């Protein structure tokens, strides 16, 4: 199953199995197991031109062993029909600073980047960011 993620300025998709839960964003600092929650606005992490969202926000939660990463976005939807996903060209993949994108889906004839949220969460927990962030 594929999730369509909308930030303020862009759309992305991810595989649902990369995400442990989706719900309304909270301000909690720890989860019920005492793990620290690292909360980030997804849009500006990926694109400096994408501002942080405000208002009613959703969190995509990825549980790691010692941390929980919450990626905050304005909107998340489950796509009724899985789009065709093609891998990124190898020469493009090889040039990515961090391997957070691993494919392209076509939605309404527009390319939408497929995110590897589990890899992204693991990198964020290690303090890794894209150069602009």
């Amino acid at each position: 199953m594929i999730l369509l993620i909308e930030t303020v300025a862009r759309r992305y998709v991810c595989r649902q199995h990369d995400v442990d839960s989706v719900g309304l964003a909270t301000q909690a600092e720890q989860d019920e197991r005492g793990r620290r929650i690292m909360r980030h606005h997804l849009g500006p992490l990926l694109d400096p031109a994408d501002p942080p969202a405000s208002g009613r926000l959703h969190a995509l939660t990825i549980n790691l062993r010692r941390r929980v990463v919450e990626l905050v976005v304005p909107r998340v939807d489950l796509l009724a029909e899985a789009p065709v996903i093609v891998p990124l060209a190898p020469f493009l993949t090889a040039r990515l600073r961090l391997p957070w994108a691993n494919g392209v889906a076509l939605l309404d004839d527009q390319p939408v980047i497929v995110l590897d949220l589990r890899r992204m969460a693991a990198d964020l927990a290690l303090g890794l960011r894209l150069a602009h962030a």
Partner: protein
Amino acid sequence: MQSSPAQPVSTTEYLMFRVATERYALASTPVREIMRWRAPTPVPGAPPLLPGVINQRGQILAVIDLRLLLGLAAAAPDRATRLIWLHHGDIDAALLVDAVDDLIPIDAAHLEPPPANLTGPAQRVIHALFRHHDQPVAMLDPAALFALVQEAA
């Protein structure tokens, strides 16, 4: 009077285009299509040289900014900006150029070696020169272009 046997002529069509103030050409064989510019979808973490991907009739193409690949300053797109769909080996990509001029046949006998004083990326990707209306046109090697994209910092 004897007629001399016809000399074989090796003529290839080349697509001429502009990047900044320079004129370049690519053999038409790897050129699939010429497209008007439209904003590519950015790929998080990709370098400015690769500003994103586009969908051209179901084919996802990574865009390569030829200005940046050649070490020139970036420029905002305008009405003349074009994307050239290149297919070479197993790679498809869209080359971002400032303008596309013409498709012209060129006799191989009119090609000149590249200047010896070329440096940097130009030295890697320019494999010949020819003169069109007395103006030099640099001929690009698509294999060298793609190799440079994979190596460029």
